[in-house]
């Protein structure tokens, strides 16, 4: 295996250091390291982070390969600085059996751009009625530990309780898409001032908050671990904060778009802003940023949701929900959290790598940048400023809300176990 010397990188945003990769691991960290025949990457002024980990990615394969495949999705991930992604179960067929999760897992391994850790469905066919074979998925080669019906809420309280209890046997976690279905019938956007004006069906904050409240109480009752997907309201933050203060084993994620965008964008009726949960208010955005900073929200997860052009180039009500996010996540976090002084780069490493890896049990990811650790690394040019151009995306889909928007930061290099997947901003 080859040796790589990353010279002068600000490790986790700290003082410049050299990092030597030997084979799959970090061999040395220090100043003035001898290149000794290693390939040298000049990283002057750039920030070196542990490879990012996304706990919430939609790769669309199997079933919707026109939107994304494991290959295109993991290439997008590598472009965005990720070394591991958790692939949501709402594929066709649904990832509710050992066979499907193993297939997705193997595709990730074979392509080699990024580790793909499949998420198993909680219920058969995401139908919310019957538990999927959670144990079999865990025991498969994919070793599933995270289960979610994402896209749909596990709204039956008994099924949710049973799932929470059942996965305790193997240290699993249920990731809930919190959306009370009756309260969100016909929902098109956040319910409030703007929905009232635009005449679009409202998705009230309470539909998210009531499910989170129920689920943290269930987790407490049965002594289980629950993870809240894409938390989006100030009220949800309050509930999670309360639950944590009570000692309930709950973790939560926020998406980059909920840290930056508000429901005001919906006034354009441009479906690129149509996402579930919907974009909320300015007040929610600030509550989410603060909660991510103080640790109430544990991690940033992209909810990368690729859709083909025709599913967005239509009227709002007919459009698909979701945005791509893998290739812009770090830039949005830099803009909303780092440049606002809410989080330093060590904090970013914690929220986008260490904690998501720990929640999902991704071994070898989210590790410190130190000797003996797997060389899963991301190098970021934080001084970069530029407009987002979806034409350059590795993702098969282009449904980004940031087209033409100036965002800071650019991932220049990504290494997966010592192998470069991205060099000078270009995929290998």
């Amino acid at each position: 295996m080859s040796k790589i010397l990353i010279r002068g990188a600000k490790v986790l945003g700290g003082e410049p250091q050299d990092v030597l990769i030997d084979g799959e691991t970090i061999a040395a960290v220090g100043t003035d390291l001898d290149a000794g025949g290693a390939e040298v990457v000049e990283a002057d002024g750039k920030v070196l982070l542990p490879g990012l980990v996304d706990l919430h990615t939609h790769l669309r394969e199997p079933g919707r390969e026109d939107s994304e495949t494991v290959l295109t999705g993991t290439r997008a991930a590598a472009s965005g600085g990720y070394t591991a992604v958790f692939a949501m179960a709402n594929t066709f067929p649904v990832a509710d059996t050992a066979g499907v999760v193993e297939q997705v897992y193997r595709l990730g391994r074979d392509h080699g751009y990024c580790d793909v850790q499949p998420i198993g469905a909680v219920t058969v066919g995401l139908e919310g009625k019957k538990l999927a074979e959670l144990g079999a998925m865990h025991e498969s080669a994919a070793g599933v530990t995270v289960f979610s019906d994402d896209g749909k809420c596990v709204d039956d309280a008994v099924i949710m309780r049973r799932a929470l209890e059942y996965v305790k046997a193997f240290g699993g976690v249920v990731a809930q898409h919190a959306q009370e279905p009756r309260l969100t019938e016909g929902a098109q956007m956040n319910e409030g001032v703007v929905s009232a004006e635009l005449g679009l069906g409202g998705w009230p904050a309470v539909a998210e908050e009531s499910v989170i409240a129920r689920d943290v109480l269930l987790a407490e009752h049965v002594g289980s671990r629950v993870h809240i997907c894409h938390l989006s309201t100030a009220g949800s933050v309050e509930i999670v904060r309360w639950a944590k203060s009570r000692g309930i084993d709950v973790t939560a994620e926020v998406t980059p778009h909920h840290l930056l965008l508000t429901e005001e964008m919906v006034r354009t009726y441009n479906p690129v802003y149509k996402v579930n949960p919907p974009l909320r208010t300015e007040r929610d955005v600030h509550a989410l940023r603060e909660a991510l900073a103080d640790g109430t929200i544990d991690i940033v997860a992209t909810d990368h949701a690729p859709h083909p052009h025709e599913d967005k180039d239509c009227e709002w009500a007919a459009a698909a929900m979701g945005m791509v996010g893998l290739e812009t996540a770090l830039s949005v976090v830099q803009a909303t959290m780092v440049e606002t002084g809410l989080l330093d780069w060590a904090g970013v490493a914690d929220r986008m790598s260490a904690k998501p890896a720990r929640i999902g049990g991704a071994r070898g990811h989210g590790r410190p940048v130190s000797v003996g650790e797997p060389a899963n690394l991301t190098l970021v040019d934080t001084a970069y400023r530029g407009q987002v151009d979806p034409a350059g995306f590795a993702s098969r889909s282009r449904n980004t809300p940031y087209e033409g928007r100036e965002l800071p930061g650019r991932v220049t290099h990504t290494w997966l176990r010592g192998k470069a997947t991205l060099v000078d901003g270009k995929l290998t």
Partner: protein
Amino acid sequence: MQRHLISAADLTRDDAVLILDTAEEMARVADRPIKKLPTLRGRTIVNLFFEDSTRTRISFEAAEKRLSADVINFTAKGSSVSKGESLKDTAQTLEAMGVDAVVIRHGASGAPYRLANSGWIDAAVINAGDGTHQHPTQALLDAFTMRRRLVGRDAGLGQDLSGKRITLVGDVLHSRVARSNVDLLHTLGAEVTLVAPPTLVPVGVGTWPCEVSYDLDSTLPKSDAVMMLRVQRERMNAAFFPTEREYSRRYGLDGDRMARMPEHAIVMHPGPMVRGMEITAEVADSDRCTVVEQVANGVSIRMAVLYLLLGGNEPAVTHARTTEEK
């Protein structure tokens, strides 16, 4: 004036008064033996209806024909159109045909806005009702009817509705008519009160330029016009109110309630009326009820809007008359 008419909120006071004044001129055409102006001769207007509304379509069609436009009616409902992208496909077909204006009715809020702003089409877009969002020509014809009744047909020219107190009663939540009226009536200087059970008022109504009341009886004596909104019977099954009887007891307009209104006050309804639940026959058939006038005024207003969007910027009166005299 803007190039499109998507929302009543897009109209300035002067735009709105110009449309109302122009509509007065257009109304005179209806009194002539030959009810036709050559103004839009050679122009093609498409009535693109994704949702059934015979009344609105016929009103636009009459307006278009009185202005001598070539009219194409396209009813998407029931055809192969079912997926969302059909709006774009249809738009591009119309664009290829060189259409000058599209009058669009659509079940999805924002569809006309998308049509006007997505670069799919070059034509002027007139919103003839979208989802639960807007129905600007309805609001204009309502304002026109109010101005005629409350200010006067000739005295009203150049005037707005300053100081007039207008009450809208019923299903505000699902009503594009309510949204359009609140915007336009506020622009025209009127004081608007919405009356409905709390379940039929949208969350977020607090920012609207109007008052909200749950009590019809206390609002009636201070109303110059009371507009009853349509309440669909299905709403009952969705638990918006307990029973039809309870709804009409609290929010229906009957003879007793009408008697509490000031002498000069009028009763309006966008139609079609559901007699019994929201309005009794006694009220509907009284001479204070303007439903029939509203229909006639709808044609004048739509002529005015089409004329101003497509014909030019000079007042329709002079322009129309000179063209006619030639």
